[in-house]
């Protein structure tokens, strides 16, 4: 009989809860959590390895875009998103994303694309940065700061930029890394 096992499994599941042996993510996005109170809409995605692999099972193989996503997810360890929409401008500042940018720079990730726009006062008002960790651990980070929307995406694991193209149906464009790197010169760019 599995009676004892059932009770034991339920108790163990309730007690253990936390994932066994999940690696610590390289980027910590928790500094952005304070913006939740200011935003009119917040989207938080935290998919660790177990959730990611469970989620993939429910992607539709018959949908070629979701099937491509399934293949892309194969080697990934986690996906994290913080997306905030604000009712008005200036409800967050560039200083709020500085902790994330500092982490990425400290890790030595390569900034593969960057776009900045300054306001009339010379201060940064919009910034879009894409970072890639070309080291063994992999990783992709996107920081997109618009006047009324802030998005940070962190994908933990080996992400090949060409694989992103397979998600064309989900809206991923051709990402021509070489020759389109404009904006302020970054001495850390192309650190490979």
């Amino acid at each position: 009989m599995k009676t004892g096992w059932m009770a034991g499994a339920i108790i163990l599941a309730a007690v253990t809860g936390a994932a066994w042996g999940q690696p610590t993510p390289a980027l910590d996005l928790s500094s952005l959590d304070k913006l939740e109170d200011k935003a009119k809409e917040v989207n938080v995605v935290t998919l660790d390895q177990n959730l990611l692999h469970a989620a993939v099972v429910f992607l539709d193989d018959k949908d070629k875009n979701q099937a491509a996503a399934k293949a892309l997810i194969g080697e990934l360890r986690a996906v994290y998103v913080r997306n905030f929409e604000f009712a008005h401008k200036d409800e967050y500042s560039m200083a709020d994303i500085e902790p994330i940018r500092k982490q990425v720079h400290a890790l030595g990730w390569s900034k593969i694309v960057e776009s900045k726009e300054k306001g009339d006062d010379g201060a940064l008002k919009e910034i879009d940065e894409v970072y890639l960790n070309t080291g063994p651990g992999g990783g992709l980070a996107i920081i997109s700061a618009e006047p009324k929307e802030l998005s940070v995406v962190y994908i933990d694991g080996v992400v090949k930029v060409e694989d992103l193209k397979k998600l064309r149906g989900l809206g991923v464009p051709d990402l021509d890394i070489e020759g389109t790197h404009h904006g302020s010169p970054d001495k850390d760019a192309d650190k490979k």
Partner: protein
Amino acid sequence: MELVGVLLDRSVQGDASAFAGIVRANQSMVYSVAWSFLRDAALADELAQDVFLELYRNLRQIESGAHLVPWLRRVTVNRCIDRVRKRKREALVALDDAPEPSTPAGEADPFASEQLRRMVASLPETQRAIVILRYQEDMDPTEIASVLKMPVNTVKSKLHRALALLRGKLERREEKES
């Protein structure tokens, strides 16, 4: 973690992608234990694959997600121990007799961790398994005892013995360097 139960259910029902998800979620753990034990990437890869194939053949025995990881650890460690014992040509040198890792005199040793890993890999199989489960997998002696199917006190005494051996080895190496 109990979401693994969903993957297990679907794997039993024949969903290959669900089983692949189980593999991906646990491959690092299984491979790492095998690698630390065998110190051979190709062998570790092959052994880790065999562990998951055994899992596939025995999916119905896995009662829940909480049961899966201990099962994987037990099978991995047992296969590692069997592989080492079957490897007749392997030089299972008693730790005390093992040659000191060579270190240029007066030079800082940047490979201390690597040398420690080698020392661990030269321990007798059971002690090796206990050290790996304790310090790589962060398991306590009770959990290790469950995986290795031995009394807790036996685990503790073997762990104590292994640490004493490793410490002696490290001290001798430091004396040589100084």
